[in-house]
């Protein structure tokens, strides 16, 4: 790592201390992409802690058979809230937060294309999150008692009909998701427009950092996936408020139609979440390997390919609804094919590592964890794509383990890597490496205890979403191990939160470019000024700072 003298003048704020109210007003009314990005991230972290706590309660309940720690009603609310929160109010906002913060900086722009739309999208999405949790107070309406939604995060019809879900908790659920969807579409629109219209001179499409490319693909995917979900939520609201019959099976409506609509959103949504994770890996792995990314055009092509193929795989969530042999065969093939571009990505990361000089910082360790765990998650994904195998595994704990391997093992790990990598840019101070490594190892142990062993009860016939299970099935030992891992993950996460708070106050000053990196965000101060760049930069290659640091051997000669 190149050593920099601490750049104190970029961090020290000589302005007089302002009132809390002034600071608050500043944040609430801001349209600055960096502040909105940070608010997205902070908001997501709060919900991460809440939804993580819900998971912890579920693991206590499931650690032994016939447990009475929580009632079935509460358990059903817990898994519904955990899933909904993690997908819509943790995953989406945290990724949008990083995108908001980084994209203008990486393409040499001073802000997003539509700053006010950006603020609107954030606030409407956060209002959705508040509505979801308000159901704990208002879910039963005038009856007073709280009742959170308990229909599962994919809320299969007709469980959401008034007959089976009285009260207002499901209304809060659908409204919350509708609002979050509007916010997501707004932000995605903003990201696409920013990337297309706000690039600095010389930043041709084939010179954009891969992170920017992946956010472009992800945002385009949001248009065609979140919109169908929004449409389906409108239908559900019409059903619940105006008495229409879209998903009312007693009036000829179809439960399967909801499944199709939901998974047309739901599966590409996985890619909406994983593409930004690839994006972080594409920036972090090359910098710590000290090598340019291997096969940039192939990486772009694979990402676009994943985007397109992901639109044709949704019904692999529906192998058990009796689709007929033809449809099952088609969706098996489509699902298997998506493993090809995904494999290309893994191989390219491998080739990037190959011949490099790998620095094992906390960030890189999390990125390495991401690589291995994503590999395993991909392989269990191939198992699930085999429709007959899925007839056994679908809706079992194997599936739960599989998608947590993706969401925690891959996405959360690379998110942690992204925090260690960009935290210095955002705050001007480095996170503690020592605490970071403790965080990594403890979280890694907890992750593998929980999610490796969670596959096994699934193979032994344990379905998901059961609040308790029979003692004679032989699932208990596995569930105990799974639950014990949750403790390690909790400790790891607390360490991380502590590290963030401590480093914000006491962390070493980072300087503009602590990792000796190559993309434009490292060419400005940490944290960047309101206007990002004093002079709008001009770029000649994919790694402008490499060109600057190696004038004798610039990238532009090779592209």
């Amino acid at each position: 790592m190149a050593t920099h003298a601490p750049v104190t003048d970029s961090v020290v704020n000589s302005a007089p201390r302002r009132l809390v109210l002034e600071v608050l007003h500043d944040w609430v009314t801001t349209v600055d992409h960096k502040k909105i990005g940070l608010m997205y991230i902070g908001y997501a972290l709060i919900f991460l802690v809440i939804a993580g706590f819900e998971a912890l309660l579920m693991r206590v309940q499931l650690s032994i058979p016939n447990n009475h720690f929580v009632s079935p009603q509460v358990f059903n609310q817990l898994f519904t809230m955990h899933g909904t929160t993690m997908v819509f109010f943790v995953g989406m906002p945290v990724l949008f937060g990083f995108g908001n913060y980084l994209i203008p900086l990486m393409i040499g722009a001073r802000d997003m294309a539509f700053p006010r739309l950006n603020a609107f999208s954030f606030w409407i999405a956060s209002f959705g999150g508040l509505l979801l949790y308000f159901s704990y107070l208002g879910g039963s309406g005038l009856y007073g008692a709280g009742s959170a939604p308990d229909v599962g995060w994919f809320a299969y019809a007709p469980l959401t009909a008034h007959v089976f879900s009285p009260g207002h908790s499901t209304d809060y659920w659908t409204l919350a998701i509708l609002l979050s969807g509007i916010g997501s579409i707004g932000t995605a629109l903003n990201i696409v427009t920013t990337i297309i219209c706000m690039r600095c001179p010389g930043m041709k499409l084939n010179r954009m950092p891969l992170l920017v490319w992946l956010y472009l693909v992800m945002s385009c995917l949001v248009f065609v996936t979140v919109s169908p979900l929004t449409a389906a939520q409108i239908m559900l609201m019409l059903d619940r408020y105006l008495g229409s019959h879209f998903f009312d099976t007693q009036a000829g409506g179809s439960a399967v139609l909801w499944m199709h609509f939901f998974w047309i959103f739901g599966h590409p949504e996985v890619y909406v979440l994983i593409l930004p994770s690839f994006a972080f890996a594409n920036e972090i792995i090359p910098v710590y390997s000290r090598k340019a990314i291997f096969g940039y055009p192939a990486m772009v092509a694979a990402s676009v390919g994943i985007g397109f193929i992901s639109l044709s795989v949704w019904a692999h969530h529906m192998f058990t609804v009796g689709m007929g042999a033809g449809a099952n065969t088609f969706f098996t093939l489509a699902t298997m094919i998506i493993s090809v571009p995904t494999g290309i990505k893994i191989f390219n990361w491998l080739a990037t590592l190959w011949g490099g000089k790998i620095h094992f910082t906390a960030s890189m360790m999390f990125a390495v964890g991401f690589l291995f765990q994503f590999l395993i998650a991909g392989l269990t994904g191939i198992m699930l794509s085999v429709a007959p195998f899925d007839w056994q595994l679908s809706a079992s704990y194997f599936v739960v383990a599989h998608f947590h391997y993706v969401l925690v093992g891959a996405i959360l790990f690379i998110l942690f890597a992204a925090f260690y990598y960009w935290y210095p840019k955002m705050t001007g101070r480095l996170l503690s490496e020592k605490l970071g490594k403790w965080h990594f190892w403890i979280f890694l142990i907890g992750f593998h205890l929980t999610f490796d062993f969670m596959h096994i009860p699934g193979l032994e016939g344990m379905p998901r979403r059961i609040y308790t299970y029979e003692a004679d099935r032989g699932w208990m030992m596995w569930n105990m191990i799974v639950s014990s891992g949750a403790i390690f993950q909790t400790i790891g996460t607390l360490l991380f939160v502590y590290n963030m708070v401590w480093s914000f106050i006491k962390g070493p000053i980072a300087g503009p470019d602590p990792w000796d990196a190559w993309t434009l965000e490292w060419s400005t101060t940490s944290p960047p000024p309101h206007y990002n760049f004093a002079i709008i930069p001009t770029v000649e290659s994919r790694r402008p700072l490499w060109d600057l640091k190696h004038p004798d051997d610039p990238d532009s000669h090779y592209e």
Partner: protein
Amino acid sequence: MSEVAVIPQNTKSAWVLPSRGIVGMACLIVAEAAIFLIFIVAYLYYIGKSLAGPTPHDVLDLPIFTSICLLSSSLTVHLAVSALHHGRRSLCSLWLAATVLLGSIFLAGTAHEWYQLIYRDGLTIRTNLFGTTFYSLVGLHATHVVVGLIMLSLALFFSLTGSMTSKDTGRLEVLSLYWHFVDAVWVVVFTVVYVLGR
């Protein structure tokens, strides 16, 4: 600040990127198209699946006149944009007024149709699957017409007060894109509801 890398500036060639308004509107149109697509799929899926009457064949009339009005408003809004582009503001106001009028006729036609369906034929959104899908799809489109009309009326207001000049052509063009989209959706809705579904 000496650490901050200074990136050389390139002043050799012009660096032109697409307009934000057009790209943003294109994104919005893609997202909206996906929403409409889902409602259309639901409509097609439920054709003939209602458990009770009335059926589309019994109660739906072809709204040909109002459809012609809506489609021709695409032309008038285009003429308004090109008038503004050439700096002919009063002509622009005239064409905008025509667009608003044609759009309003369409909306009045829908209102009349719904009134008839509800009070003459007793078809509401609760009646059967046809009512459910019909009111939601046509209603979703009508909502977009209403939004478009509000925006166009604002443009007309600014045009009349003289605060919209040829510099704002780009903005009016973005609005006209939205309006073209609303018209194009109507072609699909018309085909699905009044041709295939009847």
